[in-house]
């Protein structure tokens, strides 16, 4: 029998410390929608999404009610559209169909306007990538991602060069809305097939027809647990984080299994994530500060983050039968009150954030830079981040917003989960010649594992 102390602990985690299920994301295969006619493909895409995920929101709300835990987002991820639209070339029509389907079924976001070009791009993939600015400026819920590098393939520097321009164009086309389009576009190295988080979710080629992936959250719960051991050494800190991550992940596993059953979909994975929100007390930065840093961005930040990331994985891995996605601590600047504060005070720089991405989940995430940042500088930032991912055999990403008309010290405010970002200083020294060379950066020696 569960005792009262345990019951009240769970209630407190949910009520006072922001434990929630960040997202139930349904992966939907669109391979059966392919045709050589753009209108036919778009119509099939709309029908497939609305029939496969039509009940997703209702089921999410039902589960939320039964277990008494908030489920913040319900999302859909689809097969990379570069493949689905290749035969017809009607990429923008598919983007529009995705957006209408997402609105119809009431989900928060739909991901998968995606191309995987880590080694090279086909004509269709180039066409699709070039359509991203228009697609993101004409839709509300569509998210896009492009994988430009992997440990096996190296870095496709032609794609890196292109993406710098694409990000600038997206920011320009959505300039009337604080360049929000760039917040829905992520450039990956080592992208994963089962990520439930946006903007980078897509339904990988090796997945089944319908799959449920769940992302949990709970930085506030971890911080509160650490407050109880103010004098504990770092082994104790790690143990407390592991135990907390275990409990958080078990809830994710329960929700994922229940949702899969109710939606007649395969249970995919639980993402062992520690994802902040802009709400006070739901910050990854505050966990690092609770460990003993004056403010995130100080020396010691990378070490503290590495400890946190490792403990979250070790604690979570036994709590779920299948772990995947991005799994680790997220450090999106605009979505974390502690990060925003540290950037505003000058404590946290872009260079420190880059170092932090070497030891935690994902990468340079939700970072606003001046609107006049050149495409080459953005491309080179992507290349740096890709190099960290490729060499360390981990996923890295860049989701950067060159906020049109804004300069260092200004803010962009997206509202909701996307939060508000202080515009950060970025080096203006020119990497243009390096970027203009193009070609491929070869895979590292340890990429050849066979």
């Amino acid at each position, binding site marked *: 029998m569960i005792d*009262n102390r345990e019951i009240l602990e769970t*209630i407190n985690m949910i009520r006072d410390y922001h434990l929630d299920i960040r997202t139930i994301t349904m992966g939907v295969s669109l391979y059966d929608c392919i045709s050589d006619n753009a209108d036919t493909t778009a119509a099939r895409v709309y029908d497939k999404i609305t029939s496969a995920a039509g009940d997703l929101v209702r089921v999410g709300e039902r589960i939320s009610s039964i277990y008494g*835990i908030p489920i913040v987002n319900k999302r859909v991820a689809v097969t990379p559209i570069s493949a689905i639209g290749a035969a017809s070339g009607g990429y923008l029509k598919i983007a529009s169909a995705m957006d209408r389907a997402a609105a119809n079924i009431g989900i928060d976001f739909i991901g998968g306007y995606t191309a995987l070009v880590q080694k090279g791009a086909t004509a269709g993939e180039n066409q699709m990538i070039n359509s991203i600015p228009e697609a993101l400026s004409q839709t509300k819920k569509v998210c896009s991602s492009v994988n430009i590098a992997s440990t096996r393939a190296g870095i496709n520097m032609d794609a890196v060069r292109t993406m710098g321009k694409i990000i600038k164009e997206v920011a320009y086309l959505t300039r009337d809305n604080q360049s929000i389009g760039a917040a829905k576009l992520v450039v990956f190295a080592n992208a994963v097939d089962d990520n439930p988080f946006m903007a980078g979710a897509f339904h990988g080629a090796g997945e089944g027809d319908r799959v449920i992936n769940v992302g949990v959250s709970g930085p506030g719960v971890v911080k509160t647990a650490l407050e109880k051991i103010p004098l504990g050494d770092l082994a104790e800190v790690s143990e407390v984080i592991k135990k907390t991550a275990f*409990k958080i992940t078990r809830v994710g596993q329960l929700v994922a299994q229940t949702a899969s059953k109710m939606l007649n979909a395969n249970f995919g994975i639980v993402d062992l994530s520690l994802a902040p929100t802009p709400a006070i007390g739901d910050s990854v930065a505050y966990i690092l500060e609770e460990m003993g840093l004056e403010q995130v961005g100080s020396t010691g930040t990378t070490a503290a983050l590495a400890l946190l990331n490792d403990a979250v994985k070790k604690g979570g891995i036994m709590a779920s039968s299948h772990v995947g996605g991005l799994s680790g601590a997220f450090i999106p600047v605009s979505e974390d009150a502690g990060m925003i504060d540290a950037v505003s005070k000058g404590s946290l720089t872009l260079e420190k954030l880059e170092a932090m991405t070497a030891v935690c989940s994902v990468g340079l995430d939700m970072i606003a830079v001046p609107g006049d940042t050149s495409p080459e500088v953005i491309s080179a930032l992507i290349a740096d981040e890709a190099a960290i991912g490729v060499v360390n055999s981990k996923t890295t990403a860049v989701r950067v917003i060159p906020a049109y008309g804004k300069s260092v010290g200004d803010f962009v405010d997206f509202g909701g989960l996307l939060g508000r970002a202080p515009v950060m200083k970025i080096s203006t020294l020119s990497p243009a010649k390096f970027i203009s060379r193009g070609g491929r950066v070869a895979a590292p020696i340890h990429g050849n594992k066979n």
Partner: protein
Amino acid sequence: MKAFITVVGKDRVGIIAAVSGLLSQLNINIEDISQTIMQGMFTMVMAVELGQATLAFEDVAAKLLAEGEKLGIEISIRHKDIFEAMHRI
């Protein structure tokens, strides 16, 4: 279906009567009750069985929430599985 109802708020006359009266109306059996004062707040945990309940779980949850608002306290209900998932291996 087994669930736990938790009641948290300022102590006052009639909380248990109001909650148990509502549960009786909904044909929900109370299997165990315990209460304590935590940090000055009245805290009650009830283990209940909803097998014969006259309403669906979500509607029971909504009724309890509304009753709590009337009494100025917080009443919530959660399926037992969330507690077992979190606290039992």
